[in-house]
């Protein structure tokens, strides 16, 4: 029969008519029959932090179509290419389907019982020998809020190790720290609607056209705004700008301080707001004396005219929005850069009003959830480790001894890795993250992995570059296979729903956490009466009651029916009262230091890293979506035509990027005026050409976020290019 089918195809009698037939979907009309659904499940996108509302079409128990939810306030029915193809991930290959345990050097399938018993046993043994803090846990902003909360309790109160952090430290930790420095608490004050109402929008190190495309639409609804984009690259976002400031790498602090200098000089500040709601203005004012337009021009590479004009724009704005992402955060000065941004907003009173906010556009779909519930950089509900009352409150809510709640933050992610190298941490449990690609300076990471006694990798996908190091692999459910909430950049809590069952023996992370607690004998202590993520949500509601991130005012049902609910209301700090001891926001004096690894003769380029719209993080997901992966199947290196000519390099040459640490070979060379002379850019998504082989292990002293964005490299030719040498195109 099969042979007959093959012959029919070869002869052309069969043209796969059925597969390519069209049908009519009740809701969406004329469409490929393969995308016609019988039910549509409301959910929230599992990629970035924009938090788009979606409808996933299901037919015969399979996800067949993704659509934007037209009623969702964030995206009004629109989605980016990752969202539009997200249903494919639920039937994609490459999933982890069974627990695997390393036996005689090889990962072999085992039962859940064996897997989790081994895990509890091995970690128990390590903790007995080396102390509880010999376990490090690295979670993720990919989990549901309910799962983050559950994990935090399990790690801190169950395993009793304070060394609990997330991949969010590679992402927006600097924003968290910066907010805490200025306002006394984390929490992005504004919302996306502010993009629509601001008359000046200043984006610093934020390429939203590639990374948060749906926000571009929110911005474009605003017909009155002046968009200023600060970025050393001419990004897609820079092309949207009214003014693009192509600054030198890591000169953003100088620019921000320079703008503040001009605003103070020209009295374009809100004196009343400063007096009523801030401290340390006089210190700041004196400190900023040095940031004259001339000085700032020298540091940034801009002209004084440019700086004056931009300052004027910002100062004259009735409502000014400052948004930033990884250009600011991925820095060893990230936290203070955020504080400098906050300064600018505070001295002009651009906070707590419509259109006026310093706004961190965050990364992952639930980075915010981890910040609020996470038990990592703070206690759940933005409580402080150092605050005895906060600890007592939590102990009472949880009915546990206050003494078991840690009094200080444990090791942050990079410090956990370093502690693995130095032997202080002996076991690490990675959950839904792929540090073998995403962590800076791979060589050190590899050394850390080789030094560990026990590595657990819990992920939806197998194999991943990280699971190569695993002693135990736990297969997790992914987006679309479990139910709970995500919180987006604008504090909007949205519902993510289960569309299909996880493949094979994969289980929701929540179930895994509960199972481990059972094996630790702590199920009833930590999770009394819990069986679903909704139980976790209900407890989290009690824990967050009265806190800034108060989830007690809405139910799952309300979240779902109203397209998400924003904790803290539309915006924070409308009353000008900040969660600091004196109720005032603090202005910080932020010096602009040169970045750590400056180029020299041997390593004469500054390497910048970033993303492209088609891919997500380390491509564990998007590499499995054929459409996305074929759009951009490999990494590239952008180089300015002047440098390419000097090095006698041609478009599509294969080049090697060499740093002091390691090298990345076989990058497709793109000669382009997108980047400045002396700078090169490559995307970090590709494990095959891992940018983190060359990046630097330099971290922000406050947020512990890595400085992914600048390191010194040189460029060499890998091989002759494969194609024809072509004539110029015109």
């Amino acid at each position: 029969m099969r042979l007959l089918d093959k012959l029919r195809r070869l002869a052309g009698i069969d043209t796969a008519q059925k597969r390519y037939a069209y049908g009519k979907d009740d809701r969406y009309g004329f469409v490929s029959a393969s995308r016609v659904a019988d039910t549509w499940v409301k959910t929230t996108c599992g990629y970035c932090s924009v938090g788009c509302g979606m409808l996933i079409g299901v037919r015969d128990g399979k996800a067949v179509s993704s659509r934007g939810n037209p009623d969702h306030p964030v995206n009004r029915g629109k989605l980016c290419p990752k969202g539009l193809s997200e249903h494919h991930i639920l039937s994609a290959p490459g999933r982890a389907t069974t627990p695997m345990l390393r036996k005689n050097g090889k990962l072999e399938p085992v039962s859940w019982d064996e897997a989790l018993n081994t895990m509890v046993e091995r970690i128990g043994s390590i903790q007995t020998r080396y102390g509880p803090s010999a376990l490090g846990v690295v979670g993720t902003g990919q989990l549901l809020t309910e799962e983050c909360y559950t994990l935090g309790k399990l790690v801190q109160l169950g395993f009793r190790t304070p060394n609990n952090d997330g991949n969010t430290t590679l992402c927006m930790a600097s924003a968290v720290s910066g907010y805490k420095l200025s306002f006394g608490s984390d929490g992005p004050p504004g919302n996306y609607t502010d993009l629509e109402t601001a008359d000046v929008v200043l984006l610093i190190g934020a390429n939203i056209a590639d990374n948060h495309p749906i926000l571009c639409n929110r911005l474009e609804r605003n017909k009155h705004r002046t968009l200023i984009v600060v970025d050393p690259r001419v990004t897609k976002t820079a092309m949207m700008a009214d003014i693009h400031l192509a600054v030198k790498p890591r000169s953003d602090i100088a620019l921000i301080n320079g703008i503040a200098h001009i605003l103070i000089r020209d009295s374009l500040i809100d004196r009343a707001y400063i007096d009523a709601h801030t401290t340390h203005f006089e210190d700041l004012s004196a400190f900023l004396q040095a940031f004259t337009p001339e000085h700032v021009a020298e540091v940034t590479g801009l002209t004084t005219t440019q700086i004056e004009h931009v300052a004027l724009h910002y100062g004259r704005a009735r409502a000014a929005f400052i948004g930033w992402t990884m250009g600011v955060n991925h820095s060893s000065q990230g936290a203070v850069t955020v504080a400098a941004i906050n300064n600018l907003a505070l001295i002009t009173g651009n906070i707590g009003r419509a259109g006026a906010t310093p706004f961190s556009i965050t990364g992952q779909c639930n980075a915010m959830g981890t910040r609020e519930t996470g038990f990592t950089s703070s206690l759940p509900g933005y409580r402080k480790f150092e605050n005895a009352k906060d600890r007592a409150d939590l102990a009472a809510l949880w009915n546990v001894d206050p003494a078991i709640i840690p009094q200080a933050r444990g090791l942050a992610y990079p410090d956990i890795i370093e502690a693995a190298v130095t032997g202080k941490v002996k076991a690490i449990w990675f959950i839904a993250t792929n540090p073998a690609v995403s962590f800076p300076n791979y060589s050190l990471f590899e050394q850390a992995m080789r030094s560990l006694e026990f590595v657990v990798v819990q992920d939806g996908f197998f194999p991943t570059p990280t699971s190569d190091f695993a002693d135990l692999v736990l297969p997790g459910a992914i987006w679309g296979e479990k139910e709970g909430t995500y919180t987006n950049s604008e504090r909007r809590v949205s519902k993510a729903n289960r569309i299909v069952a996880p493949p094979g023996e994969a289980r929701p992370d929540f179930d895994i956490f509960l199972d481990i607690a059972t094996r630790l004998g702590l199920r009833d202590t930590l999770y009394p009466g819990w069986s679903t993520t909704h139980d976790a949500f209900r407890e989290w509601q009690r824990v967050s009651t009265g806190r800034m991130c108060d989830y007690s005012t809405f139910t799952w049902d309300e979240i779902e029916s109203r397209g998400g609910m924003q904790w803290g209301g539309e915006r924070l700090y409308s009353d000008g009262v900040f969660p600091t001891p004196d109720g005032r926001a603090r202005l910080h004096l932020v010096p602009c230091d040169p970045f750590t690894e400056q180029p020299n003769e041997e390593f004469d380029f500054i390497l910048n890293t970033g993303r492209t719209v088609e891919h997500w993080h380390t491509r564990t997901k998007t590499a499995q979506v054929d459409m996305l992966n074929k759009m951009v199947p490999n990494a590239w290196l952008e180089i300015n035509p002047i440098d390419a000519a000097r090095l006698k390099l041609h478009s599509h040459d294969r080049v090697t990027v060499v740093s002091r640490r390691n090298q990345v070979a076989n990058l497709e060379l793109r000669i382009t005026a997108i980047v400045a002379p002396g700078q090169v850019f490559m995307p970090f998504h590709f494990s095959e050409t891992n940018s983190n082989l060359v990046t630097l292990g330099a971290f922000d002293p406050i947020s512990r976020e890595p400085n992914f964005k600048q390191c010194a490299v040189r460029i060499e030719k890998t091989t002759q290019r494969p194609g024809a040498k072509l004539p110029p195109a015109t």
Partner: protein
Amino acid sequence: MGLVRLTENGFVFGEAVVVDTIPTLEPEPFTFPSLIPGRELKDGEQYRFHFNMTKCIGCRSCEVACNEQNGNPADILWRRIGELEGGTYPNTQRHYLSMGCNHCLDADCVKGCPVDAYKKDPITGIVVHSADACIGCQYCVWNCPYSVPQFNPERGVVGKCDMCKGRLEDGLEPACVNACPESAIEIEIVNMANWRENFTEADSPGMPLASHTISTTRITLPENTTTTLERVDSGQVQPEHAHLSLVFMTTLMQGITGALIVLLLNRSLDPLRLFLLLNIGGVAVTISTLHLGRPAYAWRALKMWRRSWLSREVLLFTLFLLTLTALTAITAAPLLHLHIPVHLIAPIACLAIVFGLGGTLASACIYLVPARPSWNMIHTPIDFFLTASFLGTMLSAALCNLPHPVLLATLTAIAWSLNHAFRLYRLHSSKLFESRAAFSLLSSHLLRAHTIAAFALVALSVTLLTTGHPLIALAIGWCAALLARYLFFVSVVPLNMALTFIRSRHA
């Protein structure tokens, strides 16, 4: 306010934001506007795409939405994003094209199709393709200057954007239009006569000239840019599909046509030789159907002989083989003691030759398409006829013991080589990027050896013939012709709309 670029020379600013002009800080209630026409089409009007380059951010949602709408695999993109770039840092300009089918007024896909699978819809003007009628000959793929029709090997047929006709008929936006978060794509109504008069808005950097087929897509370009935008996808070209079945079919048919002429002139038409030619022809035709995605429906290719060169080629070669069969039968009649007038042999042979030469001409005309500049040259028909002459001479020399037509073979070989050499020279010095790129491919390390070998083999073949080894000479000569034809197919660089710098590449 337009884009303001700041340079060391200061910058031209739009008007500074005057606070009073800002009406309100309340967001206006937002709904996406309808992006399809609100009225029915009148006589002389059709639908078209409008692409607003100033709005597109290159997010590629349209491409994904198109594939989801049509259930296409990832290798096939009926809507494609192209990148354009210009200027020097930091005054760099980056823009995008998002293009589906341009639903041309003079669509070459429609004209060339041998089976009438294409229709320009009389009401909407949409160029619609029928997968059921299609036989997968891919002639439309060669004809379209935008490389819009794409062959789907899984189906054996071509497919293309139909402006989501099924959705428009239900009053719904096409998938790409609906998916675009920036409302950069919309459907408009265009008056066809007016557009034919003035279609300058169809031209854009990264697009082949609209005058080829009068594309109807209107493109809004960024205003006041002094920067020249250039496509970024042309730094590397891949060899095209070799179409091996056509390499064999064309050379074989040309060889037997030539041989028939030489044999007739030589008065060497005998049943055995004719039978051999007939068999070669049969093999050639059989091989040629393998080029089709749907060989079982090869006969449909006869349908559009009034319009399509491909139909004409099929028709003429069919007649050629039928006449050749008759000729073979007549020459064989005496062996079977049948009385057939011998004086019919010459006229029938002439008729067969006319059909053979006609088929060869039709064959060459197939490749004379503006969308494929390195094919669209006088050298193509010259090559086809010289190949017929060269292989014909070689073949008949191998079939007959005497006299060896050394002079004819030498002359054709020289002419053949000169034609190829001149073609290479013209490709090299062409104004068209695609022609020069074809030369680059031929002279690249991928194909350079092949190119040189083709010339060398022709010379060797003639030498062998001269030294009395007609069979080996034929074999070598045929290899040369096959190699040259292979290069003809793989080195063509089609016109195309701009694509992205990084992309999957398919042969």
